[in-house]
């Protein structure tokens, strides 16, 4: 059934169709509509879930963790400060191997207060052991919730799907809402290998001495590596049932491209139009969308970028003291290659400033006219 819905409601429908069993959430702009609609679904009896209306995001994640450990499919959604408050428990969920799915609406971190989009909230959680998927459209948002459980529950690693504040969260698009029957065929009920069970009592998360800790973390990394293939498989299976797929990356017009622009989130959609326009002028430019950020699709990225002469990365985020986060990750992926490709790292659109087609076009012009970047960070749009 096709409906015109916001990104936030796409999240809610994704959770509904995934038959989540426990929801714990705390309101924060721009996430509120996600939980408002879920509250209605629960109140109407459309969704048979326990919705725990907690007093903070910290408790939201703690409650999801408890519920998941008890064997229930758990869901939450948050944004920015809320995600930061959860930080300790993001480690707990991943370290505890609990396949919770969280929707994070990308919002810039305070101070000063900002409710507008950038990626520093989710990217600051890079090393918590969560998988991360960045979405470009409301359809992808809905589909990624469902895929999220499919992936997370196979590897016992929690998954965060990320969508841009307002650009997706509050923007309505046509979304094909799958039928429950289709989703049930794709996503089996959550039956964890281990759970809190009075008939099989165990202690979870007890003191780990130096003799054991490292192995437990090694296994988490190994399963993160496994998650890459499982994600690809889950995406193929998704296509078989729903007719759509996304990949862990998407290479757009990259085959013969001399310059490849790397993006994530909704900047990707803007970039598509820029690439199309420049292609009409016979410019050999392409676009690489990074959908999965953790685990990082290093091989897939390398396979695409090695064909290019120059690469430019658009970051709507910053690791203070170094540079754009996607930029740094992509540089490290290409380090061991014999072919040296100049990589240009642009930072733009922080705190929700528009990333227009013109801005992206100017970036490409800069790359065309320079052999290498003049600065480690190429700022775009700073008015100082």
């Amino acid at each position, binding site marked *: 059934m096709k409906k015109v819905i916001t990104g936030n409601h796409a999240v809610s429908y994704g959770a509904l169709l995934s038959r989540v*069993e*426990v929801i*714990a959430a705390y309101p924060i702009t721009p996430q509120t509509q996600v939980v408002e609609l879920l509250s209605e679904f629960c109140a109407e009896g459309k969704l*048979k*879930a*326990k919705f*725990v*209306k*907690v*007093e*903070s995001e*910290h*408790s*939201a994640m*703690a*409650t*999801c*963790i*408890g*519920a*998941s*450990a*008890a*064997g*229930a499919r*758990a869901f939450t959604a948050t944004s920015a400060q809320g995600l930061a408050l959860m930080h*300790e*428990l993001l480690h*707990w969920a991943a370290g505890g191997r609990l396949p919770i799915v969280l929707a994070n609406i990308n919002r810039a971190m305070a101070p000063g207060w900002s409710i507008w989009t950038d990626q520093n909230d989710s990217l600051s959680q890079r090393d918590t052991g969560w998988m991360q998927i960045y979405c470009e459209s409301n359809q992808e948002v809905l589909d990624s919730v469902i895929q999220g459980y499919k992936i997370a529950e196979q590897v016992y690693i929690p998954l965060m799907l990320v969508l841009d504040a307002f650009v997706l969260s509050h923007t309505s698009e046509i979304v094909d809402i799958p039928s429950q029957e289709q989703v049930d065929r794709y996503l089996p009920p959550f039956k964890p290998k281990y759970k*809190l*069970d*009075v008939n*099989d*009592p*165990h*202690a*979870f*998360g*007890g*003191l*780990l*001495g130096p003799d*054991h800790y490292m192995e437990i973390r090694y296994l988490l990394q190994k399963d993160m590596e496994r998650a890459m293939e499982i994600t690809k498989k889950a995406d193929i299976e998704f296509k078989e049932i729903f007719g759509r797929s996304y990949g862990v990356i998407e290479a757009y017009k990259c085959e013969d491209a001399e310059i490849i622009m790397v993006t994530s989130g909704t900047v990707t959609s803007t970039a598509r139009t820029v690439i199309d326009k420049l292609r009409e002028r016979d410019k050999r430019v392409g676009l690489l969308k990074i959908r999965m950020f953790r685990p990082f699709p290093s091989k897939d990225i390398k396979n695409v970028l090695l064909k290019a002469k120059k690469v430019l990365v658009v970051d709507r985020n910053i690791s203070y003291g170094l540079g754009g986060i996607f930029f740094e990750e992509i540089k490290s992926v290409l380090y061991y290659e014999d072919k040296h490709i100049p990589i240009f790292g642009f930072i733009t659109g922080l705190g929700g400033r528009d990333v227009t087609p013109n801005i992206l076009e100017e970036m490409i012009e800069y790359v065309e006219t320079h052999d290498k970047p003049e600065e480690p960070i190429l700022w775009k749009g700073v008015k100082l």
Partner: protein
Amino acid sequence: MKIFNLPEKENMRPGHLACQGCGAALAMRYTLKALGEKTIVTIPACCWSVIDGPFPYSSLKVPLFHCAFETAAASAAGIRAGLDIKGLEDINVLAWAGDGGTFDIGIQALSGAAERNENIIYVCYDNEAYMNTGIQRSSATPYGAWTTTTPVKHYKNRPKKDIVAIMAAHRIPYVATASVGYPDDLIRKVEKAKNIKGTKFIHIYAPCPTGWKCKPDDTIKISRLAVETAVFPLYEIENGYKYILNIKPEVKKPVTEYLKMQGRFRHLTEKEIEMIQKEVDFQWKRLLEKCNQN
């Protein structure tokens, strides 16, 4: 001859890592006797996250989920929700936290869970300081006590937070104090809590010989003195207003008898002890008034 009629089945094994004379270990033993096997426990950072034993061991015979320091109540609420949605409503969910995890860092999550009236039993075993990290003051540390962060020259100069009143103010169905010195009373209260739906809060007095600088074999004696001096009275509050006094000492003993058994109060002068006595008398009078109002 049986003095008490306590459940014989043990749900805690020997071999745990508690110090000698640990009140917290006794508290768990009695609580699980009352709750039985159909119980899931969640424990945040506290002495008990060590007492239970390191991976892969556990001294409890029931499932245990170690949770983050400030999340005992929220984790228990999550476990409850997870069990309920699976139709396992008959399983007890026990949040088991120390005084630091309850009075201080965990009070927000606890207040949230209590306001929602989550169907959990929350036990705070109170040894009156951060004992697991080496005896640092908490807001449960009583006036006058030495700890490693309140040295004798700057002893704790604020009263113990009244957590029971705070919990009663949430108008939850059941709040009680209990003591390892009175196992029959403690077990009766846990059994009572087990049969009430909603949030149950039990504040258990649990001496710590290591931190209080007292003899391990005096744990019970000190626990009973705490009640006999009215330093830690045993009472219940139903639905936030109905106060019930459980034990009323015939002759209230002077607090000095209680204080002198513990090295943490050794530095106190007679004048300071007199002040503590006055405060205990005042609070005792207030409690009796509340109980008599019913």
